């Protein structure tokens, strides 16, 4: 599943059989992937129905990456997510209604409606709330990792970005610094084939994204991004490495952006055949089948999990809709901290 892309890479991610894994963890991952899908599907309906303020970024087909990677972290680790990582947020305790509230500009969003859309990170959950500029979260993640190392703690910092984000200053400079400083970072590239309308061929000429790790002398691993266990194992190995003080790793998880860049984007630049090919590779379905086959869940459980997720999303919407809009009277406060 994980393929080696440079010689310094540590051991191949082991193909541990499902039966040898913690069933509780597997079920939680499954629940979170199903929940992510249900929440984002609900939000798509909300977008269409006019519930949201502006556009909507979703992470369809990114659920295995978001959940698989986040699941490797301890609660006291740091995470610096981007706009396809609702699953990672939910894993860490972000409420579904709060994500919705962010896209609605509600007072109950993590920023109280000051920021919106994907900008809903919460430091109390160890998650950075990034600005729009991608991947500004990468340097920030190096700072979180730096602080951990500075204090002699064994926390790690996990950051996500897209294939397109790899072209930017922030990507290069943060990997350069993290590798020189041997910071406990794990960098995950979510290669979903597109950056807005830009295909990979116009974004990068390297053979893979994982291989860019060579430029930083760190392990680079490419992994199937719709296989949540492959993602989990690969990221877990990188996290262990970082935690042990052996420095950062770069992971490329391959998937497909199954919606438009955001919901306003019909994405008619994507060849139909790509959708056809990838619609067969639904990471949630795939994991469900793996768990069914392995007997970790049965069909009834699966049905129940899906129905619970649906109800959860419906309730979340209800709460978010009912939540108040912010009061503008204090808008000038908080520009500066005391």
């Amino acid at each position, binding site marked *: 599943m994980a393929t080696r892309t440079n010689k310094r890479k540590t051991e191949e991610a082991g193909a541990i059989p499902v039966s040898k894994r913690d069933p509780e963890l597997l079920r939680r991952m499954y629940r979170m992937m199903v929940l992510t899908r249900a929440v984002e599907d609900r939000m798509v309906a909300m977008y269409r129905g006019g519930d949201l303020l502006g556009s909507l970024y979703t992470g369809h087909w990114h659920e295995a990456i978001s959940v698989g990677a986040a699941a490797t972290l301890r609660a006291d680790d740091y995470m610096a997510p981007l706009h396809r990582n609702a699953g990672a947020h939910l894993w860490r305790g972000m409420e579904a209604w709060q994500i919705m509230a962010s896209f609605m500009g509600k007072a109950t969003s993590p920023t109280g409606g*000051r920021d919106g859309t994907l900008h809903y990170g919460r430091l109390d959950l160890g998650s950075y709330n990034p600005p729009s500029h*991608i991947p500004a979260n990468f340097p920030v993640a190096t700072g979180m990792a730096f602080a951990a190392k500075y204090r002699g703690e064994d926390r790690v910092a996990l950051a996500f970005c897209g294939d397109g*984000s790899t*072209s930017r*200053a922030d990507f290069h400079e943060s990997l350069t610094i993290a590798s020189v400083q041997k910071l406990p970072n794990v960098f995950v590239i979510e290669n979903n084939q597109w950056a*807005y309308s830009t295909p990979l061929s*116009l974004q990068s000429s390297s053979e893979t994204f994982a291989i860019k790790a060579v430029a930083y002398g760190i392990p680079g691993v490419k992994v199937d991004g719709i296989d949540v266990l492959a993602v989990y194992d690969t990221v877990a190995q990188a996290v262990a490495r970082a935690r042990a003080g052996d420095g950062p790793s770069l992971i490329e998880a391959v998937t497909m952006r199954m919606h438009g860049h955001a919901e306003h984007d019909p994405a008619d*630049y994507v060849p139909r055949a790509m959708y056809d090919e990838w619609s067969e590779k639904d990471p949630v379905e795939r994991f469900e089948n793996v768990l069914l086959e392995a007997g970790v869940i049965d069909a009834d459980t699966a049905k129940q999990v899906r129905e619970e997720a649906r109800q959860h999303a419906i309730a979340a919407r209800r709460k978010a809709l009912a939540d108040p809009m912010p009061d503008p*009277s204090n808008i*000038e406060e908080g520009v500066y901290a005391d």
Partner: protein
Amino acid sequence: MATDDGQVTYLEAVALALDAEMERDPDVFIIGEDVGQFGGAFKVTKGFLEKFGARRVVDTPIAETGFTGLAAGAALVGLRPVVEYQFADFISCAFDPIINVLARHHWRTGDAMPVTLRAPFGARLRAGPTHSQSVESYFAHVPGLKIVMPGTPEDAAGLLVSSIRDNNPTLYLENKYLYRRLRVAGPISLEPIPLGVANVVREGRDVSLITYSAGVSQGLEVADELDRDGISVEVVDVRTLVPLDVETIVNSVRKTSRAVVLHEAAKRLGYGAEIAATIQEEAFWHLDQPVVRIAAKNTPTPTSPALEDAVVPQRAQVAETLRKVVRA
């Protein structure tokens, strides 16, 4: 490229001017993220790839520093690049090459640097602190850059033509709130409008409202409103911040003796500071009142509607301020 009703929007005016310049001059090309097949995030370059080909309509990696520097190099050896930043907010990633590579080059060397930097900017779209910035003040202090901020479709066209033909790096800021909100009867003139010439868009007696970009239509609306109460507002659209047409501004203030400056950028060191400081320098003895600045609050731009409305200048606030200044 006029709409069904024969009207031309602000956005179409930009597109028409760019299209015309690309037709006229084979050295003009457009480069930016998603400007090709997608036609740009706001669809300014829709159809350009088909018409001009990938050689002249260049999709780039997400690398604002890199493609801005590329434009500089291409300009130095004779091309006339037009660079699109997907949102003006992202021009922060090209701040370094813009101020250090593009802006200072001619003064240092005598080489021309004909680059046009196009960026959709501004608030009122509920897009929040990193998708709504007014960026003119980041750059207006920097010698060697021109800054163009059209407030009408006609100016959007004529000033873009001039920007592209100008031999200097020119920051051409498109107010994205106006893109589909302002429209005029077509066809629209593609004659160049000189940079550095302000436009008195409405004559008046009682107070000069000095503004640009979205402030122009907002100001005209308010002027209409106040007219009904017998208050006569002169609206001056400066159109280009650098170079600034000080003479037209000062003449207006000499006539009305009262000046209000309006922009949607935050107040502190917004361009209103430069305009106000200049007016009191040049027309102090004609002023019956201090120059008043109407601007956004000194906060980032919020997302949530009531918050954003509380930060960005609203029509009622503009009207009230003008009334107050006139009555004082």
